[in-house]
């Protein structure tokens, strides 16, 4: 097959050959092969664990963003109840940015979760194959001449090698994905550091760099809609939102 499958087979097979070539002394192929497989299995386990760690970190990032969204929404309401539409608009713009990032982050965490599940499944398969290899090598040692054994063991080693290369590939893909996500999460953190999600009451109405950037993100329509909705809510007798900076007071009466 010269196509996708063919190309993919070629790439994986090249990797298996490199892996198997490391068995320098052919007479030791059997035991060395098994030992090498057990070693590589440790790498695989570590790879899977790294993916899990990255995923957890990104989930924490996502939780933080969720809190930002709630906070900015509250600030927008407070600003509006005090007639500061400019501040409310600024808060809503920031909220839109945070929401967009949150959606993308959540989707990617879900994808990563699926990949992780499959990785764990494949790691199990690899373990089963390595165990089968161990049994097989004892049978081969006992039953075959050196020359025959070489052929038999090469087949079995390729069988394990293919699974090994495949799990390696899956780890690589999951790692690439977490790298992309980390880059995105990093970009959000930079926005945060630049004060994008800072307490809105600290910001004047003047257009700073962040405001210009936010405006250029085209969040306009959504912000307009939300602002209108908020105004309607406030206008319909729910206008007793706490004043800016006053915090929660209910329950103290």
């Amino acid at each position, binding site marked *: 097959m*010269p196509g996708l499958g063919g190309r993919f087979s070629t790439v994986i097979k090249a990797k298996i050959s490199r892996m198997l070539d490391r068995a320098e002394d052919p007479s030791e192929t059997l035991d060395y092969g098994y030992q090498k497989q057990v070693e590589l299995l440790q790498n695989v386990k570590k790879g899977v664990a790294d993916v899990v760690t990255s995923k957890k970190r990104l989930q924490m990032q996502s939780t933080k963003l969720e809190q930002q969204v709630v906070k900015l929404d509250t600030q927008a309401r407070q600003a509006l109840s005090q007639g500061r539409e400019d501040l409310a608009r600024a808060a809503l713009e920031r909220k839109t940015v945070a929401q967009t990032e949150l959606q993308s982050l959540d989707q990617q965490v879900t994808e990563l979760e699926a990949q992780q599940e499959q990785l764990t499944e494949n790691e199990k398969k690899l373990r089963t194959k390595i165990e089968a290899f161990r049994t097989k090598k004892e049978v081969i040692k006992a039953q075959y001449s050196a020359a025959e054994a070489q052929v038999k063991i090469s087949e079995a080693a390729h069988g394990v090698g293919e699974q090994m290369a495949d799990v390696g590939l899956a780890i690589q893909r999951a790692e690439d994905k977490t790298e992309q996500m980390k880059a995105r999460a990093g970009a959000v953190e930079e926005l945060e550091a630049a004060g994008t999600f800072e307490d809105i009451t600290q910001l004047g109405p003047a257009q700073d760099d962040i405001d210009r950037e936010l405006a250029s993100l085209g969040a306009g329509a959504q912000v307009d809609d939300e602002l209108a909705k908020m105004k309607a809510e406030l206008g319909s007798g729910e206008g007793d939102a706490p004043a800016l900076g006053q915090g929660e007071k209910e329950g103290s009466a």
Partner: protein
Amino acid sequence: MIVRVSGEGQYRLPDEDRERLNELDNRAVSAVEHGDETGFRELWSQMLELVASDGNALDEDELIESDVILPPRDVTFQEAQGEFTGEGLIPDG
């Protein structure tokens, strides 16, 4: 013939499927080369369907090399376009 779906496992397919799979595969590559993502998606799912309908999963302790290794089920169009050439997707370590 033995077919592996990368990231999933190996399947035993009747040899008669070789031609069909090969044909779908060639058309998928052609779609990729023409930048036709929809066509690629359609052909790719037909390939997976063929493996699912005609293939029997190998026992996990079978140590057999595959005749064909297919990309991961969730392969992206971008991956199909570029990264299956050379060593792009496979770590060297």
